[in-house]
């Protein structure tokens, strides 16, 4: 459909990356690209170094009072005094089409704290949580 992602090729970051779904090698949904981490190159241009995910990255982009609340609630729920948003290095990106495909499984990426908490503390305790839908 679209051109395969090529390392070093130029992408319109806002159009091709921001707000896209991140998918792992098993086809499982990881997160949305909520924000991008950029770095200055020596020649003065910006390059994308990582995809940032989670409420900590999303809140500032939603903006206003609601955005502020999203970040505040997220901070309150984290253990660390100064939590950082989930971070996926751009080196883990394998291809970009209607989604951003990464090369590592979602558990290995460690960006889904709330999912794990819900998994262990709520959903796994209900009988049938491991029932295979097929």
């Amino acid at each position, binding site marked *: 459909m*679209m051109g395969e992602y090529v390392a070093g090729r130029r992408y319109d970051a806002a159009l091709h990356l921001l707000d*896209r779904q991140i998918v792992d090698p098993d086809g499982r949904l990881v997160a949305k690209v909520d924000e991008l981490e950029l770095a200055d190159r020596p020649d003065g241009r910006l390059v994308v170094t990582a995809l940032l995910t989670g409420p900590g990255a*999303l809140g500032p982009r*939603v903006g206003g009072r609601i955005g502020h609340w999203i970040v505040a609630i997220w901070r309150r729920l984290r253990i660390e005094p100064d939590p950082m948003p989930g971070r996926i290095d751009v080196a883990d990106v394998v291809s970009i089409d*209607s989604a951003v495909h990464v090369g590592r499984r*979602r558990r290995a990426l460690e960006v889904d704290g709330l999912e794990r908490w819900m998994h262990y503390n709520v959903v*796994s305790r*209900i009988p049938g949580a491991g029932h295979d839908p097929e």
Partner: protein
Amino acid sequence: MRRLFAVALGILTAIGGFVDIGDMVTNALVGSRFGLSLVWVVVTGVIGICVFAEMSGRVAAISGRPTFDLVRERLGPRVGFANLVASMAVTLLTFIAEIGGVALALELASSVNYLLWIPLAGFAVWLVLWRVKFSLMENVFGLLGLSLIVFAVAVWQLGPDWSTLWNDASRPSVPASEDAPTYFYYAVALFGAAMTPYEVFFFSSGGVEERWGPRDLTTMRTNVLVGFPLGGVLSVAIAASTTLVFLPVGVQVDTLGQVGLPVAVSLGKMGLAVALIGFFAATFGAACETGLSVGYSISQYFGWQWGKYVRPREAARFHVVLLLATITGIAVLLTTVDPIKVTEYSVVFSAIALPLTYFPILVVANDPDYMGEKVNGRVANALGSVYLVIVLAAALAAIPLMILTKAGQ
């Protein structure tokens, strides 16, 4: 042969799944007050839902991305969030109405007060969302929903003057007993009932659940273009049945029991029993669809794993949302709010929320970046644009009309 079977099954479940509590109550109410003078709205709504369901189904099959995933991508996080809150509120309201409808159907069948049925109905809906395979859920409730055909049989048995009915339907005018704002308020309500936003969230996410690809486009189109219009025929049959029984005596339909009365009058107990099965299946099926739609939309906005195609523990946040939505629904209904009133408001608020869903779909369906060669053709774009104008007009007119007519009184 297997393919033919799949297509037939798809069409049948689309017919049975088309009608929900909103369609039943609004059509019955409108029939009892306005006769068939608003059938043009049902026809307009059915064509509209076909246009947009086809578009969102095609987007899901080609790009693998369901509706709300794309809403956020196209509208950005800020407008997308506002859209999420508004769409969620409407879908949750519809979900509450559907669970209430299940309880009302059980009350009619058992004579046990519906409030006692609500916790049980809510739990049963959650259990299906938790455990039952997606395709099984779709097929069982879709096929059982076909029992609503009994309304068409009832209309035929009541032996109406067909030419009068046809005249009322084909030459719409405001009945002498009603004023124009009320007439148009119910026009908006009927339009909202036919085009409810959750149908699009559910349809496109269901496509991903069932792993549609480009090869399934023809099957999907057949289901939509044949199934939905036949579902619309069931809606009109309900309106026609209350037109024949209630309009001459000037009684307005306010309860689910009254919706079923024309069937009881013309076909007796057996007919009523079939109608009750239809009520149960239509509301229960739609409760599952709206409940899932709440989970789909929130998960798709935030990028969480969602869906019944994975084990529940692999989509933990999605299942927590489903659980919370069900508890909220039960709690709201236990305040003894009238489920029929909830339904009447849910269809009007659906009409208000329609542009939020339909505008992004139309944009993405035209984006070759997602769709490749399968972007909208001329017909889809012409119809899509016309409907965007209609949808906007209905949304803008809804609130003023609601205030002006005191919600249709």
